[in-house]
């Protein structure tokens, strides 16, 4: 066993409130403290509520390699990765996936540059990193492909604020009034970014209204992070004459999100890339059946707790949603399986897995 360091610091490109990777990093700090390490978080940028808990990257100490290790939370291209590469301490990487640039290039060329840099930095880190852990098997496979020798899965320490927030009564009442008009309500939760493929959910809704459920509606929850894509979606909805059937909800509070989860009938996900996809867990926790395109880490997150489709042909997605909503036995079995699946992602379990990862690094030759 190598010398136990005094401190294990974490480095993250950007840390903010209400963000999955940021929450994971804060939880990881708690785990490291509980293991007896001095542990601080250093970031290039931080949300206003985290001042004091997180330090600027420029203040990252450079102690003797035996005294200090550095754990890098990798999710995008950042100068933080260079700071880690040049740091004298033993290095760990916690990988949360980086979206492929080709899915973003057309809409957000500059962000595509950033993710390309991120992929390059991930490969540059490989030879100098002692142990890399990923929050899904899919992500772990990507680490191996990038040249990492020692890898393991340590699940995301999920923020349960969206699980247990009481539903906002005002939003709940409004949605109930809409439901009284008949037809089923679909939901998709995710930032309005092109690789989340909101347009494919809209296509599926159009088919569903045409073939099965003329009054079906879709609620799109998530911040509009790409103006041109959001604009295209609005034009698309208008061109399909679905303006009254598609709601662009935007970014909302945990209570409001909870109201959506408890008031709609199904979560539909046609994303082209997900490193984990927390909304799938949130939906299952709220007893909502899930229909999803089985790409990247989505099948691993859902397992048998949702309908995982091999393609996202709009008719296939529409037919799957119709089946889930009309086959009550299937609906109930999906809800039960979803609850079981959610329970397997406890924060305590994820904390233990992270601690095991650190112990494994300590024991590595």
């Amino acid at each position, binding site marked *: 066993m190598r010398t136990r360091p005094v401190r294990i610091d974490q480095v993250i490109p950007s840390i903010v409130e209400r963000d999955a990777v940021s929450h994971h990093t804060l939880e990881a700090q708690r785990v490291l403290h509980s293991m007896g390490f001095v542990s601080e978080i250093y970031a*290039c940028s931080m949300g206003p509520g985290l001042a004091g808990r997180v330090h600027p990257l420029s203040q990252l100490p450079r102690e003797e390699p035996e005294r200090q290790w550095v754990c890098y939370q990798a999710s995008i291209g950042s100068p933080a990765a*260079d*700071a880690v590469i040049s740091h004298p301490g033993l290095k760990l990487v916690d990988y949360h996936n980086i979206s492929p640039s080709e899915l973003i290039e057309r809409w957000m060329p500059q962000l595509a540059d950033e993710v390309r840099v991120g992929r390059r930095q991930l490969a540059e880190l490989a030879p100098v990193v002692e142990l890399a852990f990923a929050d899904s098997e899919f992500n772990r496979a990507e680490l191996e492909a990038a040249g990492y020798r020692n890898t393991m899965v340590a699940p995301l320490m999920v923020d349960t604020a969206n699980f247990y927030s009481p539903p906002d009564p005002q939003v709940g009442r409004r949605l109930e009034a809409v439901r009284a008009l008949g037809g089923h309500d679909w939901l998709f939760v995710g930032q309005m970014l092109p690789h989340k493929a909101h347009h494919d959910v809209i296509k599926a809704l159009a088919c569903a209204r045409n073939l099965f459920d003329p009054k079906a509606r879709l609620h799109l929850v998530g911040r509009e992070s790409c103006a041109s894509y959001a604009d295209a979606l609005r034009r698309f909805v208008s061109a399909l004459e679905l303006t009254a059937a598609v709601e662009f909800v935007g970014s909302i509070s945990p209570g409001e999100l909870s109201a959506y989860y408890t008031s709609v009938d199904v979560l539909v996900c046609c994303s082209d890339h997900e490193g984990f996809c927390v909304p799938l867990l949130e939906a299952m926790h709220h007893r909502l059946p899930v229909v999803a395109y089985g790409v990247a880490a989505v099948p691993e997150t859902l397992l048998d707790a949702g309908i995982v489709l091999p393609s996202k042909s709009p008719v296939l997605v529409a037919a799957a949603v119709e089946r889930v909503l009309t086959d009550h036995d299937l609906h109930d079995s999906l809800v039960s399986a979803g609850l079981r699946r959610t329970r397997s992602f406890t924060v305590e379990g994820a904390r233990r897995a992270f601690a095991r990862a650190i112990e494994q690094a300590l024991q590595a030759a």
Partner: protein
Amino acid sequence: MTSEVVAEIEDQVRQMRETGQVTPELEDELDRCFEEVAEASLAERALVTARGPESGSGDPIAGLAGRMGLSQLRRQAAAMARRRLGPSFRRLERRAAVGATRLGEALSIRVHVTADHLERLAARSPRASRVLSAARPGESASVAGTMHPSIEGPLLAWVVERLSAAVPNGAQEAAGLVLHAECGDGRVVEALAARGFQARGADPGAAARADGDSRIVAAGALEYLGATVSGTLDGLLLTGVVDRLRPGDGRVLAQLAARCLAPGGVVVLVSARPEAVVALDPVAADLAHRRPLHPVTWCHLLARYGLSVLAVFEPETSEPDLFAISAQRLAPALVAGRGDA
């Protein structure tokens, strides 16, 4: 079990296709329709960004594409090099920078005055305009980054006071719209909102932060102001970007600020003093990239684009390395009055 269900659903869809219940045209038409609107949206966005729109649709503070600056990589590399070179190099560097900046002050103003002359010449002569266009470097783009001067204490009080002088804060009438361009962590946006302004922020790092604050959009200052509808801002606070301008972008920024402000609107600009760039950390992290301009140069640029400079804040003790300027876009009647005088 679910794989069996999926197989059944696929069978059902296959049958629907075979019986003609679902025609190939249905999905093809959806694909074609989305491609059309996608092309239209991308083309329109490109046009708006290139032109700096005279008109636009919806909320002028609508979100732009999320972006993070590649310049961060260069900045960090410079910071690491500086740390290794030690304090003696920093002292030497500061002395050299002070000398160079004093020379640069005079030169900077002269360059901008000369540029004004060239622009007037180009306006009078199409041939000169062609020659100057050919000689000009590529279009300016926003320079992304996340280093921001700290606005607090007396400086924050001064900023709020200057904005309050011209922008309604909602106490008696509708709150005025104040944008903090390159707002960093959004702290000043929060402070302005707490004082009753309709405060919004834009910052290139906002997309990466994903903190759910809908008041802050992901965009650099030049990019954002370029896409903002003319005359829609009551107040504009510029920080960060003003220290990292590429040659020529100071003019672009002043022009955009003047265009975006409503008559009577106020712009407040906070910048590092050029001679202080190496004294400030983390400003010192990237001397090669940051190019703060002298207060006198900013006064010249703001006046050049029709903004009337109201006050200059140059603290002696609390933030000796920062200065601030407030300038107002005068209402047409006042401009006319001033001209008559």
